[in-house]
């Protein structure tokens, strides 16, 4: 689907927030796709990490808002350690997660989870999952 880009579609405040939360400059990305190739979750993502970076460069926050990419990210750091531009992409994903979580929107609802999952999962799975996927 073609995306129209004009000064009107660029959200300046999005760049500032992304920079403040992640400490990363997404404009360094030259779209090589190493992140997408390294990502174990790429297959399940609506936008690959490379595509997320591309949209972020154009300030298209409205197109990034509803996608599943950062909810599938496991913060495994495979992309960050391989990025030839030294962008910590896992931190960019975290920033995108936080921008949604801070509007009190959860990706999972602990109260709705089956009790077996809560009983069987190791504590580090629960603490990490709730930290990453709930506000």
């Amino acid at each position: 689907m073609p995306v129209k880009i004009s000064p009107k579609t660029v959200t300046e405040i999005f760049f500032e927030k992304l920079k403040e939360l992640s400490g990363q400059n997404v404009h360094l990305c030259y779209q090589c796709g190493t992140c997408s190739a390294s990502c174990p979750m790429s297959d399940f993502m609506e936008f690959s990490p490379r595509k997320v970076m591309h949209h972020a460069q154009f300030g298209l926050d409205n197109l990034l808002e509803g996608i599943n990419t950062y909810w599938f990210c496991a913060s495994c750091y495979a992309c960050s350690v391989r990025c030839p531009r030294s962008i910590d992409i896992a931190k960019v994903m975290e920033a995108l997660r936080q921008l949604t979580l801070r509007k009190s929107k959860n990706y999972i609802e602990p109260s709705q989870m089956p009790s077996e999952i809560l009983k069987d999962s190791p504590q580090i799975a629960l603490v990490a999952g709730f930290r990453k996927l709930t506000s």
Partner: protein
Amino acid sequence: MKVNYYPGCTLKTKAKNLEEAAIASMKILGVELDEIDRWNCCGAVYSLADDDLIHKVAPVRNLIRSKEHGGDKLVTLCSMCYNTLARANLLMKDNTEQRDTINRFMDDEIDYFGEVEVLHLLKFLKDEVGMDKLREKVKLPLKDLKVAPYYGCTLQRPREVGIEPVGSYELMTEFLEALGATVVDFPGSSLCCGSYQTLGNPEAAGEVASRIINMAADAGADALATSCPLCEFNLGKNQSALIEHKKIAAGVPTLYFTQLMAIALGLDPEVCHFELNDSGAVELLKSKNYPT
């Protein structure tokens, strides 16, 4: 020799097998893992948002507990605790502005400047005990076991806290060789097991875990060695479900590196708590005549 030790939450319940096998084995090697007082949950994942300091308080508090306990080193077994504590420690060492804020916020605690060295047990074994000493103490060499070293994410990434460079698996390889095992090189050593996505997106987590197990099976491994209770959960305990859903043809049992050490050192298998592993682990060991 005594060294400060941080267990973490999971090791006291669902991963008792990781902890007790380590404590007993280290005793044989002349090392007492001295649990620090009043430790708390490390937070499991290091907070990646730059403005989020409150979630860095928990790991820093543990580092302060270690400093108060005396000794300049802190050993961990769980990969996730290791990663979280080591990264919080780097922050307190290098980021003066955030360090000051955290120190001021915890006004009931002593100030902390990153003085404690956070070490994973594998690194401690190599640098402080020596793999030769480990080899000398082995009573039951694991010569019938082909083991694939599985690091996952948090032992190596990000680079600044990696126990060794990205893509190198020497520590675990030397360790397993010292135990007499045959080390199987396989391409999945540093792939993510799915981590906390077992909660958020269990199907995707199952898929990435399956790839790793299939790679290990293709490489001819009998077992995977890990140090992370979440990897063990996703790759080990999940195996019967993955076989049922035809994601994997056959299981490759997962064992903690400390359990392998305890068996090789000839310890009572009770310290290994094999009842907490996937049943495949016990079957494998029995089939090779190792005590379970």
